[in-house]
């Protein structure tokens, strides 16, 4: 099994957390995983990109046109990161606008739940429900429980399950 995934957004949207959840799901299943993340200056509201390579890989970066799945938390990033995705790759976008790919107004849903950052897990839920990712619902739940701070676990799971139901 090999899968290459990108997670794209802007600093502060929870791109890193979403990346870690997916990576943890791979680790828990015993599949090798490599990720790369943006830190430092880019985290100050700028465009950030995480890449994940699940399976037998040596390096975390993804070449143009090689990603199997793209999770976009910021729809304007489509212009910059679309080219990383395979022609037949799965494209999932957090957006309240019409357009390419499977879309969900994750920020809107998350806002109603009291925290716009939860859009990251709404989008994960949508991706899992579309069978776009290597991991299952149960595996994601286990990973979220492991990684979320104790007092936010239930809220995080609620966001994930809401995304699953769309």
């Amino acid at each position: 099994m090999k899968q290459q995934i990108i997670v794209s957004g802007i600093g502060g949207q929870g791109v890193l957390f979403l990346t870690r959840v997916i990576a943890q799901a791979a680790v828990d299943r015993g599949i090798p995983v490599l990720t790369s993340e943006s830190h430092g200056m880019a985290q100050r509201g700028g465009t950030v990109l995480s890449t994940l390579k699940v399976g037998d890989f040596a390096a975390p970066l993804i070449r143009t046109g090689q990603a199997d799945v793209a999770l976009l938390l910021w729809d304007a990033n489509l212009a910059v990161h679309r080219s990383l995705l395979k022609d037949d790759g799965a494209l999932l976008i957090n957006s309240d606008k019409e357009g390419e790919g499977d879309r969900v107004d994750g920020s809107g849903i998350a806002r109603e739940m009291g925290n716009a950052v939860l859009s990251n897990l709404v989008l994960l839920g949508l991706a899992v429900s579309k069978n776009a990712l290597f991991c299952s619902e149960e595996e994601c739940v286990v990973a979220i429980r492991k990684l979320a701070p104790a007092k936010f676990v239930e809220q995080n799971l609620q966001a994930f399950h809401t995304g699953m139901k769309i």
Partner: protein
Amino acid sequence: MKNFYDAIKDIMKKELMMGNDAIGRGLIEAGCQVAAAYPGTPSTEILQSVINRKDQAVSPLHIEWSVNEKIAFEVALAASYTGKRSVAVMKQVGLNVAADPFMRTAYLGVKGGMLTVVADDPGPHSSQNEQDTRLFCLQGRVPVLDPASPAEAKAMIEPAYLLSEKYEMNIVLRPTTRVCHSRQSVALAEPVQLERSSAFEPNTGRWCATPAFLPGLHRSLNAKLEQIAQEPDWQPRLKVGDNSQPRVALVASGIAYANLVDLLDELGLSGTIDLYQVQMPYPLNPEFIQHLHKDYERLLILEETYPVIELQLAHPGASGKQTGAVPREGELTPDVLYQALADFLSLEMPKNLPAEGRGQRPSLCPGCPHRAAFYSIKKTFPEGIFPSDIGCYTLGMNLDAVHTVHCMGACISQGAGFHQSYKQDGGTVPTVVVTIGDSTFFHAGVPALINAVLQDARIIVVILDNTTTAMTGGQPVPHMGGTADGRKTKAIAIEPLVKASGVDFIESCDPYQHERFEELLKKADAHTRSEDGGVAVLISRHGCLMDPAVRKMQEAPAVTITEECIGCGQCVEDFECPALSMDEENGVARVDTDRCHGCGTCIPVCPVQAIIPKEDV
């Protein structure tokens, strides 16, 4: 049936770790007892990991965020003189700050194992240049290791300490951003129990080496380097090809090697061509160099960021950065590698090219006190000159309130240089307002301030005090009086330090109080222009909004934009808060409530008073 090795692997604990965390854990496993660092992307999380994992150490462990990299290096160095294992951690430009002790250490050596972990930032992603620490090491005559993954970086640490102790040399581990900020499953090992007690042995001929002793030390250094180059564990590793590409080889190091492995796999070329991984780019074994000269006609050399291996190989058939076959700047991303490889092996060129552009530029956070300070500075001195420095507040350039950014602490001395240059022309000297963060001020600003006072440079120094090292994630600063692992220590307050530096005008103000802040800026300007005046220091004091405690504490009147808005765009253009944008459809400004912290600092920016506190609606 599983073999013994597989069974061991099953029992061995693995953890998903960031490269920096893997290095931190590796230091603890190797029995490092003194770890000193100054934060800087991409190196910061290494010491943070040592702090987080402190309880996993089996020997006493001193950890410090030193005031700067030179100090971190010297603290770790003396700890090594006592026979213990130590580490100094910094980013690539931090090594410039630590260059003086670093260069001399090559000659004098160490006793207990000493590593210097220097994280490079090809790209660069979050740095003022893309200098290559491996080239620095070539100049400094210091062995350097170039890991290709988090797991490899960790695996190098214990053998690197052994190498350091065998030759009594400081050894550099050079991860790059893509190693530091990658995550991977990494195997854990038990920390070693070294049980070392401090035993410093004075040796004036060595630890105080005057010029009389240096030729001997230099000779011994050169002899050690020759031996290290021959060390069997650190020889380039060959993955043999099937001879379908005779007398051709690929030579790579660091993350470029890992990227190349994946690319060859993707193209179905794995195992068809001789592939060398260089784990120790300096010193290279002369026998390896001869072997490449003798056995290969053509080489493709892939390394970040400068041609360090390529220079040492000096192979007539080499393609690399020297020949222009590989780009001389920027990261060797898989896309860049593909082009270079396709060109070298006459493969079909990749049809997909990466998209242009880097997306949205970074900006100061919503509610950031620096934004309020910058807005007031620009408004008060529209014709001013604004040198600034390294940190989040570099982003004041987006508000046109930052004119120069050079290196840690440079703004105060650059400000002084601007003043001296304009003053000698006669006439009105422009107001020079330098902005420097609290951590940067302690790092390299203090000597520059003393110099400015001494040389009577009439500048305004605004110290942006947000009580933390914000850019790198909130490390402690000297005036808060806390150690790396959270113990209370003596706080070194900014005001007395500024006063002792000879400054007579010292004021402090919360930049959220824009009227008072601007009033103080004008007073400071008057001080710099009065006959018996001098340098003026204004401390802009408000906690960093990344700190949840600060957000919780401060009044938060959410703002709203009324129908009075004329759509002039001034708040979006001049104030540049990420929570404000133009609603293009309706031609008015709008507030993004997901991102607004309700600080209200944008209220005075609107020329028609259309931004108002929500409670006034």
